[in-house]
């Protein structure tokens, strides 16, 4: 069965430090890949997406993610975290040609001043 794993439930980083959030998926072919952010009381905002092509994708708010086919991973990174980045981050995959998202369980990011 298709699945998405975000192994870190909680991550705490200091403001200004770098960040990497992990996402692994299980699927026979390369799916479409997404990262969303959910701030408290807010809906989900699309940070970035990967459909094909360059495996390093740039998103909004200074985030980037790298697709690694050999590792079935799509990790999210940011070189310097801001206090406003504190939120919950969701990785999602959609089998190519479908719209049925499968979400990971999310990683809650806490930023220390």
């Amino acid at each position: 069965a298709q699945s998405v794993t975000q192994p870190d439930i909680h991550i705490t980083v200091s403001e200004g430090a770098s960040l990497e959030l992990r996402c692994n998926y299980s699927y026979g072919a390369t799916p479409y890949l997404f990262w969303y952010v959910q701030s408290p009381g807010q809906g989900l905002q699309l940070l970035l997406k990967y459909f094909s092509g360059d495996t390093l994708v740039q998103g909004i708010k200074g985030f980037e993610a790298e697709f690694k086919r050999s590792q079935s991973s799509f990790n999210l990174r940011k070189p310097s975290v801001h206090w406003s980045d504190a939120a919950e981050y969701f990785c999602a995959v959609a089998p190519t040609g479908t719209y049925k998202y499968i979400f990971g369980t999310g990683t809650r990011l806490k930023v220390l001043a």
Partner: protein
Amino acid sequence: SAVISQKPSRDICQRGTSLTIQCQVDSQVTMMFWYRQQPGQSLTLIATANQGSEATYESGFVIDKFPISRPNLTFSTLTVSNMSPEDSSIYLCSVGLAGGQEQYFGPGTRLTVT
């Protein structure tokens, strides 16, 4: 992208009653989706609402419990029927662009059933 609004933003309801959640988008879209996010959990797709056809429900969700309407290309409703405390969740609608594979989400409706 698209701007999506939902009403109500939150509600507290008694068990056995029903609540209808509205989702409005600022442009015409073919595909709209409804998700449930149970407390502390991830999002689960309830159904796909396509204008002009019956909604398509995912495994574990049935029309009698979650009837959906899609009267036009900018609006949809989800009703949570005969509610129980287990229905306490955040319900989100989303719209699909790029063939549905790029989705934009509304702010959600936080439902508490007592």
